[in-house]
């Protein structure tokens, strides 16, 4: 095993290879001994029992695998989980709290990129950017005439679900387009002038579009259900840059196919990378492969944040972006 070569460097466990880890590795491997579970011929449980008993830090990806209580059982010395995502739905936070394991996430480091994706998808659906791009590339403009008209963004009422760091960035951008912004969140933010709705269904009823920016928790699971979608209505548009499971996907697909909502811009899905194939034939839907944070710049910033959190931990300094796990 490689860990003998880096015996002076602190060890950080990584369970699964992913593009982010690959990008991070050159810089990270100079400061840490990356213990790669996937590199071993041993099955994961056996690997952890044999090699990871003294590991204090784990680097996790929002794309998986989930950091479950079972995995944590194999890591008796673990004191820190650092994830490359803002979302923490893949980490058993209750177990971390019980064990006194600190968790650091990506906080606001790519809130801007996610907000850009949300607004980009919103404009795309409203103004039919991807659909008309396909139309032009199909040579249809010359023979069939102009593409059907889109819908004006200015003056539309947009409801943001979840007004955290991402939701706020979305709100700021949409205001510049002349949208009026309202929101639903766990709690009202008194310092903000946007209209607060305690009930997401009422927000939907009063909105032309919903933008989902919240995290996935027990409360938000399938929060966007048939009732909310009906309230949003035939002309309503939904954009999701949160997590797929916040929306009842099966219901949403039925609504889209049946014309009961106006359109959707989706970066996340319940069972990625599987996307309901009924959506592929719809021109009022824009599909994105969970890439809201996948920019060169975000990865550089994220790399610095993740490395910074690990360095802080190993030098007994405060974490740069501790997640609040209450």
């Amino acid at each position: 095993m490689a860990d003998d070569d880096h015996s002076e460097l602190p060890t950080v466990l990584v369970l699964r290879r992913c593009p982010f880890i690959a990008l991070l590795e050159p810089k990270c491997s100079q400061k840490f001994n990356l213990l790669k579970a996937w590199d071993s011929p041993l099955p994961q449980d056996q690997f952890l029992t044999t090699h990871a008993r003294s590991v204090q830090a784990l680097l996790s990806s929002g794309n998986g695998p989930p950091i479950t209580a079972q995995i944590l059982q194999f890591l008796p010395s673990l004191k820190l989980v650092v994830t490359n995502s803002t979302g923490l739905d893949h980490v058993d936070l209750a177990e971390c709290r019980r064990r006194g394991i600190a968790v650091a996430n990506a906080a606001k480091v790519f809130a801007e990129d996610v907000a850009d994706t949300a607004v980009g998808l919103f404009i795309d659906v409203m103004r039919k950017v991807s659909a008309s791009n396909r139309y032009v590339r199909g040579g249809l403009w010359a023979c069939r005439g102009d593409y059907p008209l889109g819908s004006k963004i200015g003056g539309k009422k947009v409801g943001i679900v979840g007004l955290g760091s991402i939701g706020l960035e979305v709100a700021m951008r949409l205001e510049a387009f002349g949208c009026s912004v309202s929101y639903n969140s766990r709690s009202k933010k008194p310092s903000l002038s946007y209209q607060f709705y305690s009930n997401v269904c009422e927000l939907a009823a009063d909105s032309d579009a919903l933008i989902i920016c919240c995290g996935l928790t027990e409360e938000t699971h399938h929060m966007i259900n048939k009732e909310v979608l009906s309230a949003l209505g035939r002309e309503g548009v939904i954009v999701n840059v949160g997590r797929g499971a916040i929306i009842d996907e099966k219901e949403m697909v039925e609504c889209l196919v049946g014309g009961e909502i106006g359109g959707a811009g989706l970066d996340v899905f319940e069972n990625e990378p599987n996307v309901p194939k009924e959506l592929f034939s719809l021109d009022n839907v824009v599909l994105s492969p969970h890439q809201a944070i996948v920019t060169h710049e975000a990865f550089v910033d994220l790399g610095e944040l993740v490395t910074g959190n690990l360095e802080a931990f190993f030098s007994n300094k405060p974490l740069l972006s501790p997640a609040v796990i209450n």
Partner: protein
Amino acid sequence: MDSIDVLTLVPTSISAYLEQELDKRFNVLKLWTVPVPNKTQFIKDNSSSIRAIVGHGGVGADAELIDSLPNLEIISSFSVGTDKIDLKKCKEKGIRVTNTPDVLTDDVADIAIGLALAVMRRLCESDRYVRSGQWKKGDYKLTTKFTGKTVGIIGLGRIGKAVAKRAVAFSCPIAYFSRTEKLELKYKYYPTVVELASNSDVLVVACPLTEETRHIINREVIDALGPKGVLINIGRGHHVDEPELVSALLEGRLGGAGLDVYQNEPEVPEQLFGFENVVLLPHAGSGTTETRNAMADLVIGNLEAHFLNKPLLTPVV
């Protein structure tokens, strides 16, 4: 007024509402329905009765058409750009010209930002990636962040300012080139387009098309914008040297392009179809129901004002 002959060049697909409202008020002659070989004869047959023309951004009235209509009084364009109308001839002959400013400013600015996001974040390409089943085989690649990038705007009129306002919300520093420096604005002014392009990440064409601005985006400007730069054209096709644009993209000298307009609409150079860093829209800058209706109301309003001897709403000439 239904005895007044109005020649319209605007197909139903651009605005059914405009057509409907014109039909209610005037005797409408639809030149766009006449097969090309018969157009000249059609004009001849109706030449003395036509008192108004309704054109749009892609087709207006050149000297030949104006000269063939001795009783033409007004040209009301369903567009803000009047580059397709021979304004000099209209001035000489006392023919009024109106356009549709302001009502479409927001939509066009929205499309400029929508194109920049679509190109830099590869929204259309990754939509295609998902629809073709490729996501199951692997993640899409890294794209380029839009927030914080320098947006250079050519022409800081109504539309240019609206683009700037939106880009500022994305923390984009704003730079511009204009005929005159606008000292009241806190944006960075560059006296030449090449300097603007050298110092911009995204270059937006938002000025009117005139003799001076034809091919304002030439090889030198494209090279200055560079292999990471993105060109957004929401002006007119002739602002850009189109063959130069294509070769720059082929050779990787330009980072990407979002285009709403082309030299010879609705023809689009097919070489552009293969680029993943290009997004192509069918001149849809003002393409929303709300805005096209508002534009139509302005066209109708101007025509009615003219024929009722009232002041025109939005005269150009």
